[in-house]
């Protein structure tokens, strides 16, 4: 065991660090869930891609650098530490791409990967339905064969980035007679498909971060079938593997958030603000304070962000050694999503009266970023398989407890 980075790893880290330092926008971009913000984020994706920093872990021919998993973890650490914009292409790059590498034909790989890496085509996930959330296999959007085509009818919902995305990766039912996990297929669907209506849905922050998809005799060509017909569940589960495991949320993101929390803790425990007065004066409460409870929470969040880091480096080593990341990925999803809530809740608690301020408020800390991050963090325990479902998976598949 030696946790020092090799010279090659350090060089890699220095390279991305200096690129980010020179290129990260100094002004925050608008929310990616607004029309302008979405395009600003797309431009950022293009810039990353041009420099070879959009998908460093991918093969060179698709715009990557073939970097190792450890390097990818380092890349993520640097990325989030630099305050670079969120990745509008994440659903494609982190969720769909691993599935494409595993299941797609050569033609499909040629067709889809480069534009995905460059931000030219941004993807959204169309799996959930009004009556198929946690119980995804209950989905009922029908796809009926018509020669080389599939004819789709039904509805998808909660498609993140769907309002402005170019493509959707969807799970649909091709065989209603088969056992419910067997009759599914995985289709790649362009937004301008005739018979497809995309309806934006506002998220809790009021911006259209979701979309609903309505299919009315929409025709999708069989060349857009990913994996075999009827094998959609197996293909989809490969995606959820990446969603819950290393790919979706690397530790760098939470390390950076915990570091910011430490900075906030330091700034609010400035003796000029918090002195030994019996009770904090009104100004102190308004400005926020780092009390003993907050210190405890900050240290906990920081320690947990590092614990997640070590878990991922350890897992990366096992993956590189040819082992698969199994159901223990469920641990990771519970862990990072609850850590993210804790980090932002702790910050808001410390900010006190300033917690509620939005970007429009002059006195907001970091432009209201804590509240924005908190609102987003609250969805973590819901998406990518709720944490209740993840706990079931841990209990049943890792601990071997009876299903019923």
């Amino acid at each position, binding site marked *: *065991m*030696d*946790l*020092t*980075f*090799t010279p090659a*790893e350090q060089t890699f880290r220095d390279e991305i660090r200096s690129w980010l330092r020179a290129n990260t926008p100094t002004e925050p971009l608008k929310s990616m869930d607004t029309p302008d913000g979405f395009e600003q984020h797309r431009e950022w994706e293009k810039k990353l891609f041009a420099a070879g920093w959009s998908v460093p872990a991918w093969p060179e021919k698709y715009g990557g650098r073939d970097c190792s998993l*450890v390097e990818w973890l380092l890349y993520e650490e640097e990325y989030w530490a630099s305050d670079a914009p969120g990745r509008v292409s994440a659903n494609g790059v982190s969720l769909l791409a691993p599935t494409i590498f595993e299941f797609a034909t050569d033609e499909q790989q040629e067709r889809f990967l480069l534009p995905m890496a460059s931000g030219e085509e941004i993807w959204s996930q169309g799996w959930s339905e009004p009556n198929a959330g946690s119980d995804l296999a209950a989905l009922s959007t029908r796809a009926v064969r018509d020669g080389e085509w599939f004819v789709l009818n039904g509805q998808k919902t909660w498609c993140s980035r769907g309002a402005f995305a170019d493509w959707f990766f969807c799970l649909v039912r091709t065989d209603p007679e088969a056992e419910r996990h067997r009759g599914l297929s995985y289709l790649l669907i362009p937004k301008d498909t005739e018979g497809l209506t995309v309806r934006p849905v506002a998220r809790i922050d009021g911006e259209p971060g979701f979309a609903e998809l309505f299919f009315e005799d929409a025709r999708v060509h069989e060349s857009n079938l990913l994996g075999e017909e009827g094998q959609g569940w197996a293909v989809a589960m490969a995606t959820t593997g990446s969603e819950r495991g290393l790919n979706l949320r690397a530790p760098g993101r939470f390390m950076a958030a915990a570091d910011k929390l*430490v900075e906030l*803790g*330091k700034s609010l*425990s400035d003796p000029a603000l918090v002195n030994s007065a019996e009770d904090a004066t009104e100004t102190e409460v308004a400005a926020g304070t*780092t009390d003993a409870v907050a*210190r*405890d929470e*900050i*240290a*906990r969040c*920081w*320690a*947990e962000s*590092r*614990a*997640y880091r*070590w*878990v991922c*480096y*350890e897992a990366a*080593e096992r993956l590189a050694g040819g082992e698969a990341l199994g159901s*223990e990925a469920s*641990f990771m999803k*519970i*862990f990072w999503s609850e850590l993210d809530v804790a980090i932002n809740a702790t910050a808001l608690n410390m900010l006190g009266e300033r917690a509620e301020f939005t970007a429009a408020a002059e006195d907001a800390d970091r432009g209201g970023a804590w509240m924005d991050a908190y609102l987003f963090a609250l969805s973590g325990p819901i998406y990518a398989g709720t944490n*209740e479902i*993840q*706990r*079931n998976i*841990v*209990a*049943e598949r*890792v*601990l*071997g*407890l*009876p*299903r*019923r």
Partner: protein
Amino acid sequence: MKFAFTEEQQVFAETLSDVFAKRCPPEAVRACWDSPVGYSEDLWGTLAEMGVLAITAPEDAGGLGGDERDLVQLMEAAGRAAAPLPLLEHVAVGIPALAEAKGAAAEGAEGAAASQHWLSQAISGEALVTAGVRDKGTVRDKGTARDKNADSSTQIQYVNYAAQADVAILSYQGELYLADRKDYTTYEQPSVDGTRRIARVEWSPDAATRLAGVSASLTFDRGATAAAAYCVGLAQHMLDATVEYVKEREQFGKPVGSYQAVKHHLADVAKAISFARPSVYAAAWAVSQSAVLQRAGSENITPENAVSDRAQYVSAAKSLASDAADLAAAKCLQCHGAIGYTFEHDLQLWLKRAWTTSVSWGSASQHRHRLATLLGI
């Protein structure tokens, strides 16, 4: 960056797990409750013969020259067995401190000469070393001078195996001292865990017995890391035993382990353990590196990481591991129901070791307090 243990380290850990499984079953742990020393001298002798006591001693002193990376999985295996042995005090803390004192060899100081003597006796198992070390910022370094009548130079500390040991390493104001058994008085303090042999130690620091060149905070971190590894092992055993139990025990016509409330309790325990464990390994690595650099006269792990990094790793690890052990204890008791609340059931042996190990060498909140300070808050 390399996380994995060497094959040798793996084999060693597995061998020790087997030894504990055979020689330290629950009946043996229970028997230690009634033994005057609190541990099996027979098993301790076997470990000495196997060279286990020599792991952390330098080769030139007749040891195996290993470090915390070689030790951490052993401590974890001991925790799984709830093995009541002075491994932490003697092997993880005592021997490295004696070795460092010997290396530093302050001119004519009694401490250095004595540590040479004790080191060889400790490696062979002829003598027992214990340790009571406090680090500023974690636990008050002043002793608990509650006894108003005590003479002001008398220090008070609570030390495990203090009465049983031949020599104790004690801290006072950030310095370490080597105290012969005859140089301190002990007052036994019975613990909720009947295998603990805690005593109030009263002693007067004597400058001649100061262990020059041995860092009290590094020594404290060694103890905290070993305790953290032990906590992970305790938690893992409680989880495994409870998983087995809830698969068997039936109510309302099905195993209680099929109920979601029970599943989620145990999933949380499993999660806490899997995040504590790599943090503890990372702390063991940080302590080993810090010790190497300290010997070389540098305070830095790498030029960009000050030595406070080591303490950050350790405090992060001990807080997570203590929490994992406490959570495991609480949830595993709950999932057992009343049977787990009996003296006869073995769960109580682990519960009590968990409650006591989680708070010794710094509790979770004390380590978070130290961590917050180290982070500059």
